[in-house]
């Protein structure tokens, strides 16, 4: 009988322990999904949810604040999302806060970020509609990059045409203006820089594409989509083409500047007469300005690409390798 009692105590402890784990897990799950705390609702309208689902988390300034309660299609360009927000953060959200759809980590779940605004506004109330911010996603980013590359190709074509025309028209002889030479020189420098950058990027992208093909690295997973990789390769080819063009252009400009310098030094040439025309000179100046702007823009693009989070790591590595190389060569 005593043994029976002892067994019953053990059984009781066992069952209670099981129940404890059960209740604890219910509580732990419930904590994350706002099932037990009190909460309120606010809404936001988006044109594209990018895969946001019911039950996804809502962050306020990066803190877990609630979940997506429901998603409702209002019309072909508007989707209303109802957010269930914990009462604890209620007093911190203002009416002018902005809701944006983001991603948890590089490949995680979609989340809704509520971003506080700096201007003063009354506190949010039940059922309020927050302003929505269009999110930047990596897909769009890379599409823009591709467009930029196309633009670079067009620009370098245009530069090439201009240079050819300048060369063939031989009007340059008449340019006594030293400033043109200077600006040409700086253009040249810029183009040089741009070319170097383009080369670097091309090399990098090339490498990256091979890595991507092998499916390595964080970006590799993201980009294991072959269509996407194809796009990127296209883009790389175009950049290559552009940099090739830019190279040619540099050579031509170099010889051109050499000619020009000589002619300026020697002060002779058969074409003086033609370039008396100041309009022509102004045009030419404008062209040069455009070239400079174009190359500046290209440079900026390349810098932007360098700083893009996807490629940042790679360029850093490259830099390190470069430093190492330098150190070794010294």
């Amino acid at each position, binding site marked *: 009988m005593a043994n*029976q009692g002892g*067994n*019953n105590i*053990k*059984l009781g402890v*066992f*069952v209670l*322990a*099981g*129940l404890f*784990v*059960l209740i604890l*897990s*219910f509580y*732990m*799950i*419930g*904590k*994350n*999904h706002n*099932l037990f705390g009190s909460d309120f609702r606010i809404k936001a309208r988006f044109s594209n949810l990018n895969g946001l689902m019911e*039950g996804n988390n809502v962050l306020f300034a990066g803190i877990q604040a609630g979940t997506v309660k429901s998603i409702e299609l209002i019309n072909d360009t508007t989707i209303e999302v109802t957010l269930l927000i914990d009462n604890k953060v209620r007093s911190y959200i203002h009416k002018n806060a902005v809701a944006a759809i983001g991603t948890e*980590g590089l*490949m995680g779940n979609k989340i809704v970020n509520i971003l506080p605004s700096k201007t003063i506004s009354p506190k949010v109330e039940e059922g309020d509609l927050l302003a929505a911010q269009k999110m930047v996603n990596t897909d769009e980013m890379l599409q823009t990059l591709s467009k930029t590359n196309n633009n670079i190709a067009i620009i370098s074509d245009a530069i090439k045409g201009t240079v050819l025309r300048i060369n063939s028209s031989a009007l340059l002889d008449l340019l006594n203006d030293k400033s043109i030479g200077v600006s040409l020189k700086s253009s040249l420098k810029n183009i040089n820089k741009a070319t170097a950058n383009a080369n670097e990027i091309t090399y990098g992208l090339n490498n990256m594409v091979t890595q991507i093909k092998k499916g390595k*690295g*964080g970006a*590799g*997973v993201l980009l294991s989509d072959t269509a996407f990789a194809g796009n990127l390769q296209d883009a790389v080819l175009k950049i290559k083409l552009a940099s090739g063009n830019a190279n040619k252009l540099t050579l031509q400009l170099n010889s051109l500047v050499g000619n020009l310098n000589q002619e300026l030094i020697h002060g002779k040439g058969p074409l003086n007469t033609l370039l008396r025309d100041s309009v022509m000179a102004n045009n030419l100046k404008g062209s040069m300005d455009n070239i400079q702007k174009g190359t500046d823009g290209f440079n900026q693009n390349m810098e932007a690409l360098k700083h893009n989070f996807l490629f940042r790591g790679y360029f850093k590595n490259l830099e390190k390798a470069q430093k190492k190389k330098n150190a070794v060569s010294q």
Partner: protein
Amino acid sequence: MALTGSIREFFDETGSVARFTGRFFSTGMKPRFEIKELLSQCYIIGYKSLPLVALTGFIMGLVLTMQLRPSLVDYGVESQLPVMVGIAIVREIGPVITALIFAGKIASSIGAELGSMKVTEQIDAMEVSGTNPFKYLVATRVLATTLMLPVLTMMGDAISLFGAYIGVNIRSVTSFHLFFTQVFHSLSFGDFSPAFIKTFFFGFAVGMIGCYKGYNSSKGTRGVGNSANSAVVLASVLIFIIDLLAVQLTDLLGLN
């Protein structure tokens, strides 16, 4: 001819199991419950199975974690290891492994125990002593397995997760708190509830099959051995079938 014979046998067996189950609800659930015997069975079936379930659960959590790590490292999402393991354990591995271990231990012991009681006329002796052996032996055991397996599964899950925590910490370092925050952050009631509810059915199946096989054991040592063996086999198969039904049901109900 032989084929139709075995098909007949199969249907016959299915029918008898169904009838036996029906008897559990019609006879076993009527008053004058054998509370004391139920408690003692709960102790034997539940408490005494805990060490086994704990051991297998722990190893399962540890091994699963170590097996998953290389793939996740390849994909560069090693940080998601607790999430993956947590979902795998809570949704599927925990309930099914626990139920299978449970079936191996309990269905066979019930099958052998009732089988030998049947063979040595102990069941008849009970009947003669004014005890409904169905209530005293079958109902108590089936109820005990039905109630104890969910408890065991909960404990098994917890221990499995602890094993997984150690598995994560073999190659990298994560805090206990972070691990459990990550695990529970990824879990929802849709993950947890169906997995928990199905363990009741697993337990019911294990108890029912063990009792059926034992209660209908044929004479002799061989008969008892056969009933113990076929109880484990049938109970394990039933666990998988119930699992299949459960996943489809939860899918239909939109809980997935």
